[in-house]
């Protein structure tokens, strides 16, 4: 008897059909991967299975019994647990407290720590999770936090686990550990639904793979039957874009020079520690590092959004260390921020007003003191056409566009006004393959035209493929430089965690 059967699931949202005619059968004791592009409808489907919303059509069968969930509580009662992509843990509580939160065992009204600890240790040992219930969550690394999340779900009696993009936040070594855990779970008869768009990982860990494209199931395949490339083409439905640079366009004219830059956090820790590097015209410098190792602070310091404690930043040969962000932007610095909705857009403003954002003092958006609405609208139409932003018009609010189109819009905006330096933080995060290919194309063209680019990405293939020079940042320090032409993602991952920094040092 299969653990989960989904038949004919259809879910509509206003204006879009997120899922239609989904059919999936998940065998008990399997790791079943669901793959698809961003926006293909994987998360919507998993939310349906976890009871976060009801499907408009179709049936869900769990362990042979047809079910209808009206809330996650119902799903949990049926033995389904979900580990979200973004961890939901309270930093200032211990592992034990986080795990029992919401289903505390009590003894005469008092939290029964002893029972809880015994149960957690039992789970941890049974599945090789290796967690210590007494540790504070804030002291844990990303991999350990994820294991706490998994333990939390198991503690509530889940026999079917949904893992939503579990590897997105992990470095390769942590991914291997996670997969070892998943095999333990499997051998104990648990079922895992594994959502991902990283195909190598899926092929390594899954027993069966279901591909979702444009909201519906395309095919279910066995990993030994397919290659990563075939799987990708099933996902996209066509040929795949590849991140790569052709001939070098690197010049010897320095566009951005960072000298001995140090940035301290509020508690006095050096989050960017004595960093120096140069980006030349026509060069893309990739910055590799596990998230939270100072990339964000470095970028903010270069853009003038965060004060540096010491060191200099030069644009061309001008010292801009003391300049305001606006002045830096006026002199040709462009910035694709990591969090587009928080830092890149005014969600409730029309697109043409978003075109003005970041270029408030520049033509064609303004004429002296006045906002030039007509000029901004005209240029927004150009941008929408040139960068293939799918929108019915420029009066539409940014919030109405899909994530990929928002990102294409931001890329187009930042490329407007002939910038000389672009800082691109995760430029293709969360966008579909088509938009990703378009963004890479724009980066390549701008590079050929002499743009200097600082590229930050969690996608190691993108970093390796799109960089002329690749540097590794660890705990705020640049610890090495690797050659993007020869390095493999595994080697880069090792360098990012500090394991092999010494060997990888090239220059």
């Amino acid at each position, binding site marked *: 008897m299969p653990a989960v059967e989904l038949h004919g699931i259809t879910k509509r949202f*206003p204006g879009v059909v997120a899922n239609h005619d989904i059919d999936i059968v998940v065998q008990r004791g399997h790791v079943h991967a669901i793959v698809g592009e961003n926006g293909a409808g994987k998360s919507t489907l998993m939310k349906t299975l976890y009871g976060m919303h009801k499907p408009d059509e179709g049936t869900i069968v769990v362990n042979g019994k047809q079910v209808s969930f009206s809330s996650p509580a119902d799903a949990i009662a049926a033995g389904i647990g979900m580990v979200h992509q973004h961890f939901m843990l309270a930093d200032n509580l211990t592992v034990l407290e986080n795990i029992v939160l919401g289903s505390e065992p009590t003894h005469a009204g008092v939290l029964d720590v002893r029972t809880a600890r015994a149960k957690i240790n039992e789970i941890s040992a049974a599945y090789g999770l290796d967690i210590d219930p007494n540790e504070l969550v804030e002291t844990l690394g990303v991999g350990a936090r994820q294991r706490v999340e998994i333990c939390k779900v198991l503690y509530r009696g889940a026999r079917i686990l949904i893992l939503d993009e579990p590897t997105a936040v992990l470095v390769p070594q942590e991914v291997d550990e996670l997969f070892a855990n998943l095999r333990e779970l499997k051998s104990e008869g648990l079922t895992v639904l594994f959502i991902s768009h990283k195909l190598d990982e899926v092929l390594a860990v899954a027993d069966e793979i279901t591909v979702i494209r*444009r909201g519906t199931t395309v095919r279910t395949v066995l990993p030994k039957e397919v290659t990563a490339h075939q799987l990708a083409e099933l996902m996209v439905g066509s040929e795949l874009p590849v991140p790569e640079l052709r001939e070098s366009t690197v010049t010897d004219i320095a566009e951005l020079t960072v000298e001995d830059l140090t940035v301290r956090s509020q508690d006095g820790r050096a989050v960017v520690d004595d960093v120096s590097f140069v980006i030349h015209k026509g060069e893309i410098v990739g910055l590799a590092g596990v998230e939270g190792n100072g990339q964000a602070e470095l970028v903010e310091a270069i853009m003038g959004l965060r004060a540096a404690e010491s060191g200099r930043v030069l644009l061309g040969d001008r010292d801009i260390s003391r300049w305001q962000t606006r002045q830096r932007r006026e002199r040709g610095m462009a910035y694709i921020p990591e969090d587009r909705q928080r830092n890149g857009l*005014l969600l409730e403003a029309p697109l043409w007003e978003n075109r003005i954002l970041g270029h408030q003092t520049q033509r064609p958006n303004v004429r002296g003191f006045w906002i030039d609405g007509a000029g901004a609208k005209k240029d927004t139409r150009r941008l929408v056409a040139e960068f293939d932003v799918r929108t019915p018009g420029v009066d539409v609010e940014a919030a109405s566009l899909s994530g990929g189109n928002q990102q294409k819009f931001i890329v187009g905006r930042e490329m407007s006004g002939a910038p000389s330096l672009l800082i691109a933080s995760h430029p293709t995060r969360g966008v579909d393959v088509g938009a990703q290919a378009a963004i890479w194309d724009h980066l390549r063209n701008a590079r050929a035209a002499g743009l200097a680019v600082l590229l930050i990405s969690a996608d190691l293939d993108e970093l390796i493929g799109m960089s002329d020079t690749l540097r590794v940042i660890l705990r705020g320090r640049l610890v090495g430089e690797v050659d993007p032409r020869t390095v493999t993602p595994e080697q880069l991952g090792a360098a990012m965690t500090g394991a092999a920094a010494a060997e990888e040092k090239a220059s």
Partner: protein
Amino acid sequence: MRDRLNRLALNIVAALLAALFAGAVTSLILWLRGDSPSFVISQMWHYGTQPSSEVTILNSATVYYLSALAVAIGFRMNLFNIGVDGQYRLAAMLAGAFGGAVALPNGLHQIAIIVVAMLVGASWAGLVAVLKVTRGVSEVISSIMLNFIATGLIAYLMRPTILGHRSGANDITTEPIPKSGQVPGVNLISSAGTKVYGLIFLAIGMGVLFHIVVNHTRFGFDLRATGRSSSAAQTSGVSVKKMIVITLLLSGAMAGLVGMPALLGDSHSYSSITFQTGLGFTGIAIALLGRNNPVGIAFAAVLWAFLDQSAQILDINNIPKEIVQITQGVVVLSVVIAYELVRRAALARQQRRVGRALAAPAPGMEGAPA
């Protein structure tokens, strides 16, 4: 464009529905008390549309309008200036004392008084700004505290040995402003016998200025951008701290104008009896009702003033005139809810429209709205 017109129409409908709802709640309460709602409404309408009432309504609406504009400047940037009340009273008092103390030619005298009032209002609000950008103190807390400090400061300064002037047995005012510093009323409603504040035109001018600055200038763009998302504005190169300071200074300067129509057009001197506390808070309600939009605020100010004035007749009929405060309270609460519903409905509608428009060229466009 179509979206914006749609949204405007929806907002007007929302405001009218909120007003009707408030009327219904008030009627229900009247009915529960055993009064006839239709009698009360017809009484209020009859009294409120008398020429003399109309003059009073326009005069209070002028003052309310300025107060609401002062609040709205902050609101457009997500700043909550609760201190309009203290800023306006301190400004009126010091400007009154200044006007009574100096001798200047007609024309210049009025302008000087108004400038002093704006400077005082701006400085008092500037304290709030300094506390916020240097120490991170919430403007809500500091501005409300400064209201109390303003009350104390005024009481101290109004002692006869300092700036006070004993004009009657119990009444202490500032030195009266001579003729050269007064602004005569205008005869807008000829049969009334009383005149409308001459500074009503200043209020209208300020509304126009507000619209132009907020919607058509670079500064206004930065202001609105900061209000919509201060993180995005910061990233785009707006200095949010600088914007906080400028906005609070402008809000305070506008608050300084609130006392001017009455000071220069009617009382000619400051006393704590004519310039009562609460105007700044009324401004908050009216700014909310008018959606921080200069035209919307104008209608809201007139409605508010009409309710205030027409309720005066109710005591004669043994009905507590405080009943209109229920109307005013309900209308603000329900309009805030209605505007939020409209906002969500309009966004959902637009998303559907975008979905439809894109469904044709690109079938099965990506994903669900989050």
